């Protein structure tokens, strides 16, 4: 029941073949059975979910419209506010913080009939790519529990992969939706910056952060995007975009589309399995009428460095609000205000978060600002200009999502290496482009592999239908 496609499930609910309460109860049954192993959820909202299921069922029984996601159980990353539920961001400092209002995406999901099941585990304040920096313990990958699900939206990916929800929302600042989607064999979309409201998302790096959906199929992701997209006056970076039906265009195919594959992405320590998957994906697209050509993108390594400088600078500003004064954890060990601030951060924040805040403060400090932060912003323009020129000739870019097909839970990985592994995903955040990770092929050890399709701003329709085609051709 939980592994069915969303559209099919909603139709079955409307036709009376599935009772909504039965679906929601099945979801909680799976959570009870499996989450002690995977640790995908930080908090659950069973009482309200069952109440909502009853309300929606009354609507179905009386012939009323329940919305495009009517009755579908959804998991929300724990940095997206849901009114009345704890919102921890995977951090001790927010352990007891209860959200006073819901994010716009949550309101939109509810209006579409979705049922919020709970909040999912994540790297602390979304700073990480393994979900190991969470104060609430590491999450395991349901595809192989010896591996991490990736991160930072690792809980959202694991919950979905283990049938503990049917759709999930994550946030993507440098690849945090696409990388866990790739590691867990799911589809993950980072929409164009400004297409989905960030109101109610706890900010990490405001000029990169973007909420997006994860699903078991491209169709599920397209349907969820349809529900959550749209202009929001509560988000000053929200964009007014022409209406588009992402579902109806999925089967249009890729005939005539021009796709570039950057040759620089195939050097260095990229796993052979992944290289082969991208080559096979390129062949599948060519066989179906797309024109695929090798292209060159320079400055790729410097793009990652610029990304980290800007992200940490913005994080140091955004996280200054967690000072133990108005909300969140406050140290009890202090004699004056300065000591309270200092001890609150020492006790409330993990090492990775404190490291990134310190780096952010350093690059913004007088004497280092121009050399680091300003320079990084200039590199950001260089990178975007180069991709813009590329998109004058090509409709989209095909690439790997990750360098490897997984990270073992017991594996100690150097943090600089982890940063460099974001090579394929950060350009979409630096430039605001939409990008999708779709499963294509498997590694030697049986783990799923994701390939990435990135397009210019607001090209979601094209990248979704390209991903849809690859989904049909995967394993064939």
């Amino acid at each position, binding site marked *: 029941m939980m592994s069915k496609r969303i559209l099919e499930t909603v139709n079955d609910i409307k036709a009376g073949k599935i009772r909504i309460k039965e679906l929601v109860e099945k979801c909680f049954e799976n959570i009870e059975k499996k989450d002690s192993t995977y640790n995908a959820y930080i908090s659950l909202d069973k009482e309200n979910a069952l109440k909502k299921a009853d309300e929606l069922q009354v609507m179905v029984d009386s012939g009323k419209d329940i919305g495009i996601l009517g009755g579908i159980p959804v998991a929300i990353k724990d940095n997206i506010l849901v009114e009345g539920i704890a919102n921890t961001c995977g951090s001790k400092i927010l352990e*007891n*913080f*209860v959200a*006073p*209002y819901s994010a716009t995406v949550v309101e939109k999901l509810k209006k579409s009939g979705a049922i919020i099941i709970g909040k999912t585990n994540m790297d602390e304040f979304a700073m990480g790519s393994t979900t190991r920096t969470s104060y609430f313990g590491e999450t395991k990958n349901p595809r192989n529990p010896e591996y991490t699900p990736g991160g930072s939206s690792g809980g959202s990916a694991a919950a979905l992969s283990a049938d503990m929800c049917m759709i999930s929302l994550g946030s993507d600042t440098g690849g945090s939706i696409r990388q866990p989607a790739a590691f867990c064999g799911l589809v993950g979309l980072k929409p164009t*910056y*400004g297409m989905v409201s960030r109101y109610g998302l706890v900010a990490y790096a405001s*000029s990169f952060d973007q909420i997006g959906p994860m699903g078991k199929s491209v169709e599920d992701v397209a349907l969820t995007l349809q529900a959550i997209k749209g202009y929001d*006056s*509560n988000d*000053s*970076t929200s*964009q007014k975009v022409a209406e588009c039906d992402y579902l109806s265009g999925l089967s249009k195919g890729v005939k005539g589309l021009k796709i570039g594959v950057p040759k620089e992405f195939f050097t260095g320590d990229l796993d052979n399995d992944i290289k082969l998957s991208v080559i096979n994906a390129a062949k599948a697209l060519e066989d179906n009428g797309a024109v695929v050509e090798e292209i060159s993108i320079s*400055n790729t*390594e*410097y793009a990652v*460095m*610029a990304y*980290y*400088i800007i992200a940490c600078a913005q994080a140091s500003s955004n996280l200054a609000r967690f000072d*133990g*004064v*108005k*909300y*969140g*954890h*406050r140290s009890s060990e*202090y004699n*004056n*205000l300065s000591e*309270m601030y200092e001890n609150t951060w020492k006790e409330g924040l993990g090492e990775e978060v404190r*490291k990134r805040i*310190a*780096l952010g403060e*350093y*690059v913004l400090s007088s004497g280092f600002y121009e*050399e*680091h932060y*300003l*320079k*990084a*912003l*200039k*590199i*950001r*323009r*260089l990178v*975007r200009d180069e991709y813009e020129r590329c998109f004058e000739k090509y409709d989209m870019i095909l690439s790997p999502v990750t360098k490897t097909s997984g990270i073992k839970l017991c594996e100690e990985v150097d*943090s*600089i290496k982890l*940063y460099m592994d974001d090579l394929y995903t950060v350009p979409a955040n630096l*430039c*605001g482009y939409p990008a999708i990770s779709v499963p294509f092929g498997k590694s030697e050890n049986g783990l799923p592999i994701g390939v990435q399709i990135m397009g210019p701003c607001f090209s979601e329709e094209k990248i979704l239908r390209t991903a849809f085609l690859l989904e049909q051709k995967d394993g064939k």
Partner: protein
Amino acid sequence: MEKMLEYIKQISKVNTENIEPLTQLFLNEENICNDDEKIDSHFKEFLLENAPDCDVDCIIVPKTV
């Protein structure tokens, strides 16, 4: 931390002469100004419930003076 600083220092190798910094991805033509309106909410109760230390109506902070 030292490793991180060493890592980011490598950006000095990139020639950015005459390049303008990219600070905004999209420039919205108008500033969004929502009207002030009084609404019924339990925001005050929520704020006080979330505060680490509070009195009946106030958040308590350490003395600064």
